[in-house]
């Protein structure tokens, strides 16, 4: 059975077809093939959200998981994200929380907030 997928790696949104041996067609770049195999075996997503920050500039700090995490762990990770409070200054790329939900992936800051 061939499976039809839409690639979500980039905004091109290639329409992929995958056969039972995980051969992929329709991808404009190699990332599409990797995505299709991953999606059918262990789907993952990068989580982007915000954490509370004590700052004069913004109420919340944008954060993301430095790598994709299993799709099934997104809501568990959100519970952790919503419990975090940080204080300015924060540097872009700074690790805000290590190894979120045992995924081995860190939560990092997506912008610099000086004060």
């Amino acid at each position: 059975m061939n499976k039809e997928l839409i690639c979500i790696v980039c905004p091109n949104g290639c329409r992929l077809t995958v056969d039972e041996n995980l051969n992929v067609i329709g991808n404009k770049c190699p990332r599409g093939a990797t995505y299709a195999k991953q999606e059918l075996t262990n789907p993952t997503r990068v989580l982007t959200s915000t954490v509370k920050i004590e700052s004069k500039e913004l109420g919340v700090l944008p954060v993301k998981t430095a790598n994709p995490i299993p799709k099934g762990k997104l809501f568990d990770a959100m519970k952790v994200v919503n419990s975090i409070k940080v204080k300015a200054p924060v540097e872009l790329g700074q690790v805000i929380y290590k190894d979120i939900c045992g995924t081995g992936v860190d939560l990092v800051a997506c912008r610099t907030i000086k004060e």
Partner: protein
Amino acid sequence: MLNKDLVIIGGGSAGMAAACSAYDNGLRDILILEKGPFLGGILNQCIHNGFGLEYFKEELTGPEFLTRFVKETEKRGIEYKLNSFVTGISPDKVVTYTNGEEGYVEVKAKAIVMAAGCYERNAGAIGIPGDRPAGVITAGQAQLYLNEYGYMVGKRVFILGSGDIGLIMARRMSLEGAKVLGVAEIMPYSNGLNRNIVQCLQDYDIPLYLSHTVSKVVGKGKLERIEISKVDEKMQAIPDTEISFDVDTLLLSIGLIPNNALLDNMGAAKSSTRGSSVNEHMETSIEGVFSCGNVLHVHDLVDKVVQEAAVAGKSAALYVQGKLPTHEEVINCVNGEGIGYVVPSRIDLDNAEDNIELKFRVRKPTKNCDIYVEYNGEVIKKAYKNVIIPSEMEIMKLPKNLLVSGNGTLSVSLKVREAK
């Protein structure tokens, strides 16, 4: 009165990219005017990822993408003013702005780049039947509240319109614990990117109701309930197809409109994008006034915005340096059958680079078709498309040598191939 070689209106991705490009092409006396408290514009609230894959070959969030351009802008020492709102531009390029520190300021510019982005269509634009309670807001406004201030606007949410901001907000509100009951789209197809249908709706089991619209809003003071109805081919609600949802929030993601009032008031000619009409150098009908980014036509990808803005910035530099002569003879670009708009609206062939980029959108999703570029009625380029959809802007490179100088007309159209 202040004097500047170049004033850029808007310090978002387009404004910063235009400023850096103008600098790199020799201009130094540049001022960016930004109405918000940060450089970066709308990307400040777009905390999701997917930006920069084309430009930086990396997947970045909005804040990460904008930070790179802020660094480039600051590295060049380009002057910018935040919290500074432009109130008008006179025909002789005097830009008036106000801010809390300087009050009311006039600055005379040799060239202007308009990069003020776009705004959201709101409830008033579509006349939703029923009450007028609190809780009906645009998706982008909800995004600002949530992603910059940390305020949730509601707990039970319905979304009207399947534009990308609506889809992104469906996921964002779900992750933050809201129940998103559905998305209604009046068209028979989605207006968002395919990847967003998958990762924002399907991932969270949020139903997408195509050919449906909100037919009733109910609530005294605060939104209590909405009804959606199926629509016929004329987009009219069909009786007895109502589905009711108890919600406290209705998010609207029903389109973006270029925020182009400043240029309209200057008398710049308009195009079918609702932005200004520009030539291949992004110059409007007013000499020395350029336009780029979402104020010109609404883009899907910021990567394309910064590329377009770089052209506008370079052109502004050439203009100030006296290297962008105007010519009487121009080629007019028009949208033919099946095409919503074409940018640029005009080509000044004597100034044009070797390859001219034509940007356009189709009117509806189409399979198995050809894009035809005709010049004075003769087909000069043809490209086959397996699938083409309105939510993805198309870019076609047209070699300059396919055109001959003169007051010609270039048209882009779409023709479906006959089934074999």
